[in-house]
């Protein structure tokens, strides 16, 4: 058990975690300021006999300061976040050379369709595997997400990637895995009684391992 974010398994992880830490610092300062201030006031200004509170209706200067600082901080944070957002999810963010995989979600499984040896989806050598997502490391992968029935959500925590799969919609989500290993893919949107077990394994493999697996899996699928 770690009390921190999980392994950084994709190129997004650094950016997302960096932004998370930046927000942690900003909110941490605000948090300490307010909570310490409150505790201090609670002790310092507790009722004592014979004292009367200071009669004031406010201070325009103080209020301008504590309106302006959050405003500037939030706008800046918005601009920085948007920079990453556009790179991760923007309309034109999917790299042109991304390796295509189609995932069809249905109650309660992930049907993963691979492009086969030719590397193209929609050709006769495509094949489908249940609940196993193999991806090559260090190469952008674009997942074409569809759903059979209800809304599901494709979520790989180590990749920091989440995207809903919506019936009637064709949604592309891309990522680039960086660390070979075996991870988990879960459904993040309540999709019915089997939501909790709508789980798949994610295998991040070196290009050679991936090619070898692909060759074997394609053969098994065609036989």
């Amino acid at each position, binding site marked *: *058990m770690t*009390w921190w*974010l*999980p392994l950084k398994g994709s190129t997004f992880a650094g950016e*997302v975690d960096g*932004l*998370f830490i930046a927000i942690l610092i*900003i*909110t941490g300062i*605000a*948090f300490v300021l*307010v*909570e310490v201030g*409150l505790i201090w*006031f*609670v002790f310092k*200004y507790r*009722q004592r006999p014979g*004292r*009367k*509170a*200071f*009669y*004031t*209706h*406010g*201070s325009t200067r*103080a*209020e301008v300061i*504590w*309106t302006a600082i*959050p*405003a500037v901080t*939030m706008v800046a*944070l*918005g601009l920085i*976040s*948007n920079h990453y*957002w556009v790179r*991760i*999810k923007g309309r034109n963010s999917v790299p042109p050379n991304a390796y295509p995989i189609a995932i069809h979600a249905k109650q309660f499984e992930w049907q993963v369709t691979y492009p086969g040896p030719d590397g193209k989806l929609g050709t006769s050598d495509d094949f489908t595997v249940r609940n196993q997502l193999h991806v090559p490391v260090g190469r952008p992968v674009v997942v074409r997400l569809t759903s059979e*029935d*209800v809304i599901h959500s494709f*979520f790989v*925590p180590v990749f920091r*990637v*989440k995207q*809903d799969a*919506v019936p*009637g*919609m064709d949604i592309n989500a891309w990522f680039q895995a960086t660390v070979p290993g075996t991870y*988990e893919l*879960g459904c*993040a949107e*309540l999709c*019915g*009684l089997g*939501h*909790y077990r709508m*789980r798949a394994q994610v295998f991040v493999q070196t290009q050679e391992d991936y090619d070898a697996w692909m060759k074997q899996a394609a053969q098994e699928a065609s036989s």
Partner: protein
Amino acid sequence: MTSVAATAHSAHAHHDDRSFIRKYVFSTDHKIIGIQFLFVSLFFLLVGGLLAMQMRWQLGFPGKPMPGGGILPETMAPGGVILPEYYIQLVTMHGTFMVFFAIMPLLVGVYANFLIPLKIGTHDMAFPRINMWSFWSFFAAGLVMLASLFVPDGAARAGWTMYAPLSARHDLSGASFGHELWSVSIILVGLSSILGSLNYITTIINNRAPGMTWFRLPLSVWSLFITAVLGLLALPVLSGAAIMLLFDQIIGTHFFDPAAGGQALLWQHLFWFFGHPEVYILILPAMGMVSDIIANGSRKPIFGYHSMVFAIVAIAFLGWIVWGHHMFMSGMNPTLGSSFMVSTLVIAVPSAVKTFNWMGTMWRGNLKFTVPMLNAVAFVAMFVIGGLSGIYMAATPVDMFIHDTYFIVAHLHYVLFGGSLFALFAAIPYWYPKMFGRLMHEGWGKVHFWLTFVFYNLVFFPMHILGMAGHMRRIYDPTQYDFLKPYQPMNEFISISAFLLFATQIIFFVNFWWSLKKGKPSGLNPWQDNGLEWTLPSPAPHGNWERVPTVYRGPYEFSSPQVPEDYLPQTRKLPGDREPAAASAAH
């Protein structure tokens, strides 16, 4: 009904000869209606809590028989072991009861009804009979929702947000009647809120006492006014969406079913177009009442009254243009994500203004830690955590990771429990004397406060850590995932803390009932406050005032140098105070 309308204004106002039914059941008295809302929604708060305890049992001890679970039928928990289909009903009904039948009616149903006429100085609501119908349609909605727990196929099970098409098609959810009852109940609860909102808005605009100008209104009334505006505009959208959902469920329309040409995201847009303003309906009244209580407890005028009012208005306005932040991962156009992100982040500004102004109010005050004041200060401390954790999910790239995880569960409970419910634990004992003529027990109130404060944080703070690990929401058995198995001790810890938190609430309920008969008589003004309601006997009589009071100043003149005492009631005329130019037209 003419007799009721007549008594309110006749010389017999305090000579109450209404029948029992007219007085306590089909009452048009705003105070009785407020108290009816209080009893019924406290009951639903308990129901919502019981549902949460069952969820926490399953999450802490997955697959083990729940103590006392043997009484549940085979379809829910055979041998006391909770089934996945029952678990998602628990998830759905906990959220539904807490949002629509506990927090919202506790804040708005109870306190808009009870406080508005008392605090602005009028005899009753502008439309007392509409007000009565508002309560009874809420009551009917509650009965329907409660009944849905007992129908053969079980209750609704698509989350309190009821995302379509899971909610719309029975073949996909396994529910049938339960989902239809959910829709019917929500239509009724929408009706109740619309009727209530109309009343609150009209009453505040038209029936203020002479001298009660807009900027002499207490912040509680301001926040209830803005809340009513939000309710009047948001609830019709929910009702419309719920009617469409009901049609999908029973008469074969396909508004939300893509398989037949509908749109799954349409539901989300409609739901959150209501749902985000709803979030502010659930917090603004809490902020308003806490403002009143903090000024009183600090014996100081509220710091920056005008900016507090403008912050309420700003939050409400921004609340209309942020609904898309619930949908960053939904497949909605990502460019919309950018604009929703910025509008969402900007809400931090008025929220910060309010927080710092509450601190400014306490600064150099003379703080008296009554039970209401303790809970009000805790509200500020906890609301800050809920507000700040909202920034993480507002930033779209971070939301990509934490969306639909326990980070969100932590965030929303810091706002709704740490915020709204702590505000209610402040408001209930604060206005209890004006409702029942007695004070709640102070010592047990403090015990309840401290235990709740500790256990509450032990339950919800670790959920941030679970969320950072990627722990998804609404999963029946986290141990299905290898990466979540190491977090099982934390889930167990949270569950045990939750049981203790629930047990602590028994203290509150016992105190509440015990004090009705045995509490210390409170007198007119136990908190030495300035508001108009404290000039009336406790409990306040039917029709409130024989003659409406005249108001000479704002509600927060504590520790004024003009008088030796540290409070100065709004109705007290000092030499040099001018009579208000004209009495309000309503009188």
